């Protein structure tokens, strides 16, 4: 009986010990997120940012119990070491406008705070949230540059080949598709990098929430995410080319262009869910055989 009584006040007190930490985090990252909200999130290629942030906050809320519970054994030394490293990254990133460091510093800072406040169990409870922070970091320019061009070239080449096989008068030079009297530039946004990024984030979150026991099941879904996003993007480019070819330039650049991105993303998501459903029945049957 006394044990039950004991836990209650200590739990609420343990919740209060987070207040200075939360205040410190807000001081560090409110300016960062304000900058991102006014600069990068309003652009198409980082529009997923606020959603990722909301998911992160939900992931913390979901695991609030181990955080509110009184600490059993903390790990202050490793915790403070990781925290100080993270703060160093933050100072460099924020002052030199290296977004990779500025936002990326959240990972060591939160990991350090968890270790120092709640020890290894606290860190373990929130490992996925820490990992998911990766998706909040805008892809650094050099990676985007290195991936966009090869992706665009592949997308153009494959789209041109498929259209040619379908009997359309099509040719491509680099990232420029010539079809009929139209010359279409496969723009950076058409590389599919963003849809790959978003779909893999959603897929990971989905797998985390599903908590499949089978490693193979998880691995198969993971491995399928990027190919699905890549194929969906090729279908999207082909559809846009065909719309332009049959209905004119205005149609291809207008409403359909914006809409196609959304439709294809949802289609890719459905393909992933269908694949998961098939795998789920397969793995369930396997378990029953055992």
């Amino acid at each position, binding site marked *: 009986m006394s044990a039950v009584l004991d836990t209650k006040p200590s739990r609420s007190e343990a919740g209060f*010990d987070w207040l*200075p930490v939360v205040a410190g985090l807000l001081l560090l990252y409110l300016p960062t997120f304000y900058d991102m909200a006014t600069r990068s999130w309003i652009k198409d290629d980082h529009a997923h940012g606020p959603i990722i942030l909301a998911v992160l906050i939900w992931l913390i809320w979901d695991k609030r119990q181990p955080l509110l519970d009184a600490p059993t054994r903390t790990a202050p030394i490793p915790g403070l070491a990781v*925290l100080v490293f993270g703060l160093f990254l*933050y100072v460099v990133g924020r002052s030199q406008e290296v977004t990779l460091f500025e936002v990326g510093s959240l990972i060591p800072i939160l990991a350090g705070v968890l270790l120092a406040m709640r020890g290894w169990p606290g860190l373990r409870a929130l490992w996925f949230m820490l990992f998911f922070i990766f998706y909040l970091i805008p892809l650094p320019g050099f990676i985007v540059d290195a991936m966009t061009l090869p992706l665009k070239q592949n997308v153009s080449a494959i789209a041109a080949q498929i259209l040619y096989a379908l009997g359309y008068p099509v040719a491509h030079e680099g*990232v420029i598709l010539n079809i009929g009297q139209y010359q279409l530039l496969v*723009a950076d946004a058409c590389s599919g990098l963003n849809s790959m990024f978003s779909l893999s984030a959603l897929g990971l979150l989905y797998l985390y929430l599903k908590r499949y026991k089978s490693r193979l099941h998880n691995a198969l879904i993971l491995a399928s995410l990027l190919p699905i996003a890549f194929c969906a993007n090729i279908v999207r480019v082909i559809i846009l080319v065909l719309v332009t070819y049959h209905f004119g330039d205005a149609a291809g650049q207008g409403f359909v262009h914006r809409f196609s991105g959304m439709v294809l993303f949802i289609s890719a998501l459905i393909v992933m869910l269908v694949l998961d459903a098939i795998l789920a029945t397969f793995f369930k049957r396997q378990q029953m055989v055992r």
Partner: protein
Amino acid sequence: MMRSNRMALLIAALMIAASIGAVVARPVMNAANPESTFLLEAMIPKHFGDWREEQERIVHIINPQDQTLLAKLYSQLVTRTYVNADGYRIMLSVAYGSDQRGSLGAHEPELCYPSSGFILHRREAMQLTTQYGEIPVRRLFTSKGQRVEPVTYWLRIGDRVVRGWQRRLVELRYTLSGRVPDGLLFRVSSIDPDQARANKLQDQFVNQLLQSVSSTDRKRLSGLGDT
């Protein structure tokens, strides 16, 4: 419980220190060259040496997508076609950006040309000799269908012309001293299957251009001159 509270206060104190540190360590914009305001358009003469800007020039169709990207990367961009007495044409493109950090940095022509459907056949690093010193340039030999286009270009970051990894080094040096490096990409090209002739005329073009501008502007364009 007491220990946990004390830890929380220590963490908050560290965070406040980092937050102040980030504000203090912020560099002053373009402390490198306070007289950094200049107009590229007016700086490069329309007529110098044997060369004169061609007025009725071939219309370059720039895709709107390209233009927004360019506007993002470069604060100033001059593209002109010059012609000499023999009717030889050289295309000049100078892009200036006041902030070369991270994703704002200049894109090298090795990337631009292939993405416009050009094939990059050869890439050479060499020194372009001028009377003011040598410029470490790159020469590209590109083609697109029948159009063969040798290119000579250099990239100035901060106070010097850099090639390859030197760029990161100069950027790092600027960053460590709390300054923001600016950058200028200077590119000349001609549609000419004869690479040797093209490079010779491009070198002559560069030399005559550098002779016709003031020493401040020469420094801005090529990094050459006393520091």
